[in-house]
């Protein structure tokens, strides 16, 4: 599984209220949620983001509420992966459960700028920056069953496919 896309940068403690404000979670429609994704951080994010783009963030990404609307909104907005220094635990589980690939990378954040292109190789456990001076960052590879789970679109679809 290789993902390649443009970087959107956010800082530390990106919370689920920022990813999808509570005023929109009276719906669970992915397209509706996507239209308001990251709105309070950048009101035009949903318009600017392109399918395949990648979010790069600091510590504790996804902290706050347990709303699965957060990974759903990111995925439906076209975000192909989130790479952060660390993740809050509920978001970590929910991201995989909803089929949104996420990766921990300790030093990538400082090395990339918004708009840079990066390539994530989930099988080999490697992130490579694109451009004149490519840099390589080791990440924990995603094991085969998790890759299948992501390909299926989440935990439940994966379980059904296997049963």
């Amino acid at each position, binding site marked *: 599984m290789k993902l390649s896309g443009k970087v959107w940068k956010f800082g530390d403690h990106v919370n689920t209220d*920022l990813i999808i*404000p509570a005023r929109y979670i009276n719906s669970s429609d992915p397209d509706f949620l996507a239209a308001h994704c990251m709105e309070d951080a950048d009101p035009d994010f949903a318009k600017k983001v392109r399918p395949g783009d990648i979010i790069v963030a600091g510590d504790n990404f996804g902290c706050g509420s347990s709303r*699965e609307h957060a990974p759903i909104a990111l995925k439906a907005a076209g975000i192909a992966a989130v790479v952060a220094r660390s993740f809050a635990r509920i978001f970590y589980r929910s991201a995989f459960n909803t089929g949104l690939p996420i990766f921990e990378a300790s030093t990538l954040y400082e090395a990339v700028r918004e708009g840079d292109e990066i390539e994530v190789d989930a099988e080999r456990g490697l992130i490579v920056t694109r451009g004149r001076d490519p840099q390589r960052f080791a990440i924990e590879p995603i094991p085969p069953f998790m890759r299948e789970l992501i390909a299926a679109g989440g935990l439940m679809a994966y379980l059904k496919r296997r049963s």
Partner: protein
Amino acid sequence: MGMTITEKILAAHAGREEVHPGMLINARVDIALGHDVTAPIAIEEFRKAGGRKVFDRRKVVLVADHFTPNKDIKSAQQVKIMRDFAREHRLDHYYEGGKAGICHVLLPEQGIALPGDLIVGADSHTCTYGALGAFATGVGSTDLAAAMLTGELWFRTPESMKIVLTGKPPKWVSGKDIILYIIGRIGVDGAAYRAMEFTGAAVAELSMADRLAMANMVVEAGAKNGIFAPDAVTEDYVKYRAERDYLGWASDPDARYASVLEIDVSEIEPQVAFPHLPSNVKGLSKVGSIKIDQVFIGSCTNGRLEDLRLAAGLLRGREVAPFVRLIVIPATPEIYRTAMAEGLFDIFLDAGAVISPPTCGACLGGHMGVLADGERAVATTNRNFVGRMGHPGSEVYLANPAVAAASAILGRIAGPDELKGVHKL
């Protein structure tokens, strides 16, 4: 080797003699909880997996509390999905309308969440039940769906962090201040993935309301769960409420902890968390003059009867400052009724407050008190993220109910001692 209370509860539910931090286990759940925001997605996932029957209709608990009474058509549709599911599966514990309260206040009050339980809920503040001596943690909707279907879920056994509380809290310092102080010390990811275990001589003096407020906010430090070993206070709270048998666990003397934090609560003053992180905490004496537009007393952190009594004690015979709105939301129907019977509603109404039916609404900017651009609120809630209570340009300051009430009266962030002739009810 000894085990912590968290490890013992997990081991018991995984059918093992022993578990240790880092161990992945599959464990049986006693309660699987969802509400009107998270349950509809869980129900969809449940069906996606081909689910036809919940694992135990007594153990799946659904509460309509977030955008209820239904604030708009979208919310009404969400609640309908949940109500239809509850009816189809003949759930014992479905709460809506006059039966519904804020889930994390309702479940302990109704004796549904009990000591020794393993509880998962699709709400981050599910950790509240740790106050009773349960292992309780928030999960996403898909995990809830798996739990509703199978009655089991996988966990990584967390490392435990021991918080030793000593001393006697000064007047106006409550559980809320102790947990805010701790979050201020360790940061919003200072307990990431860990169990926060509260021990020490000061614990015996903490009421169940204080403990519930503290366990409620451990997630704001990134913790997986917070826990208090059951004692006489727990037994008093639980014995007439419990709807089934329960078990009190305690940590072994030789249990292992990843870290130990000692706090003398006699040195803490009331705490205020400034925007936009719960860790952005200052002691009340260092707050300065901050004018406010709204005060909210309620939520799963501080919407209990003790909180309302405390606020009413200060509001009695006083009025809310001009151009300041005070919103009081009793967390459950039982609290609502008792507060009314005790005359607290008269005090609130005379002071100029508005009283809402039980709902989470105001805490998360859902309804019942949304903030405009540039407005500031003092709230007895647990989160002050950007846009948490409304417009992204608004600000939320977290505080205890006494500080909230005094602030409403003075129109700025203030402590009860600044009011003339203060007395406790």
